[in-house]
């Protein structure tokens, strides 16, 4: 589990950020991993629609620039999906997933805190790097258009 935050998944798809959704988009994760990732993004952002877009960008990142650390991130997703009593993480409601992620962030278990931080940081960096989120922050944006 070491080196997990190195997988923190900064949005790195660069100019392609936002993605076209075409068949050419590279993929790093399997369908169940994507389901976990989407739920983790939803829990981090408390927004299911934003989670879909964010998870897709992270998937593309880990398939390309972040390929070296994709196995670590996949391990984090597996622990998140299966690492607690009850249902799989991807099957929790948005509220339940957010509560679970927050509980992990506060956990006495270091690995849980590490996973919660990595997933949350990745989701938030990716989502708030997107231009459509800036108006809500009153961020006036780059000088270079």
């Amino acid at each position, binding site marked *: 589990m*070491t*080196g*997990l*935050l*190195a*997988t*923190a*998944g*900064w*949005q*790195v*798809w*660069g*100019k392609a*950020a936002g993605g076209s959704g075409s068949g050419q988009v590279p993929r790093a994760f399997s369908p169940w991993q994507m389901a976990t990732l989407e739920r983790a993004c939803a829990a*981090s*952002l*408390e*927004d299911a629609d934003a989670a879909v877009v964010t998870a897709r960008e992270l998937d593309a*990142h880990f398939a390309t*620039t*972040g390929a*070296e*650390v994709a196995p670590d991130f996949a391990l984090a997703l597996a622990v998140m999906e299966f690492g607690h009593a009850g249902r799989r993480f991807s099957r929790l409601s948005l509220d339940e997933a*957010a509560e679970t992620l*927050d509980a992990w*962030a*506060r956990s006495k278990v*270091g690995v849980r*805190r*590490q996973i*919660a*931080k*990595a997933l*949350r*940081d*990745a989701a*938030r*960096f*990716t*989502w*708030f*790097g*997107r231009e459509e*989120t*800036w108006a*809500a*922050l*009153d*961020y*006036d944006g*780059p*000088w*270079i258009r």
Partner: protein
Amino acid sequence: MSNPRSGRFEDVVIGSGAGGAVIAARLAEAGRSVVLLEEGPRVGRADFNQREGAMYSLLYRDAGGQATADGAISVMQGRCLGGSTTINMGDVVPMETAVLQHWRHHFGWSDWGGITDDDVHRAAQRAKTDIGASRITDAEVNTNNGLLRDGAKKLGIAGQPLEHNRTGCVGSGYCLIGCAYDAKKGTHLSYVPRFEAAGGEVWCDARVDRVEHGAAGVVVSGVAVRVEAERVFVCAGTIHTPGILERSGLGGGQVGRNLSLQPQGPVLAVFPHKVDLHRGIPQSFGVDGPLEVSVERGLGGFTIEGVAGGPAMTASLVPLPMRELKPLLGLYRQSAAALCLVPDRPSGRVVWSKGRPKIHYAPTAEYTARLREALKMGARCYLEAGASAVRIPVVHGKEIRSEKDIASIDDLPLRSCDLSMISAHPQGTCRMGPDGAVGMDFKLKGTDNVYVCDASLFPTTSSTHTMVPVMTMAHLLAGQLGA
């Protein structure tokens, strides 16, 4: 993938940051044939689009995600032409004489080939001149840093504008993701052009995996690159220099040890008016905490400096549930931020596994105690300047609205991953000295033609900001080699 490149030179330098670019320029200007290898891309102002996502990917190691093995501390490092000097805050802070004396007395630097403290001072001055260093004027201190200054002044705490290496700064605020106006004079705009003008070759996208050495010279090889040379200068930084050496079977058991990260902890504040921390020079004023510099202890205490991040960095820095974070983000333009820079003692190690570094680091209890004091002072400064609320971005953190609330910082758990922490000044791992991996002649012990020149050399933390100390070492090495 780059086309395979190979060649024979007199010298090969690995890394184009504060160490590599300086030694490369000095060697080339002395008439040597030199190739400078940079793992990252060749970048310039046209590439810097001021978007965090794209720029962290383009310019940073692991797209900004390099971190300690426990995930607690982001270890920021440039991976592009100019290395970290392309993406740093541009702070110019030479090492103090007392730090050097600390190393002379406690780490065997007393006999340093005749290099005196004055020589070190002159080398630092030379570096400062080369990168256009100057003191930030009062008028250039942005609102965020000005609030920190004003609060400190009301509390009777000293401080001053920092020195920096910008000329013609337009105040866009995007220093951390590449200056699109060529104001900040990182090595990509200072030493690398000099190097190329002197006939040196720069090969970017050239990752080095191994160094082999023998009496006849060295062979440096990696992804689509192979160079034969008389000498090699390994300047890949505190985290990756030991990796190259370990992969090459060089340096012995001391390589990778004695890591300092000098982690920085943030303080956030909200004001009833606009601050626009993302505009102007992001790190322009330093509040003097009880920064201690002594021959006995080296560098200790702490200092507090303004800082800025774009929306993405800011949002990822605060580990609160979204329902608590969202109202804070809505006040982005009324927000202020500072980093508490707390020098540490070496307490970490870098090891290499499956081609990647694992950065093992645990802050000491003594460090954490000083960090708490720094966080409290930062909170006091912002409250005194009129902040309506202050937040330490920690999982269990509550709003701080009064001096009474500040005491709660003593109770914050500050376990691994509780607080968002950043390291921009990793040091150590290839310590220079009688007990270290590198001799006082900068040569890796057991070799005659493998030199190390970056922050990995420092026995303890050299300064609060390492760019100029590393450049200083490179100038001293060049002097030793007659360049």
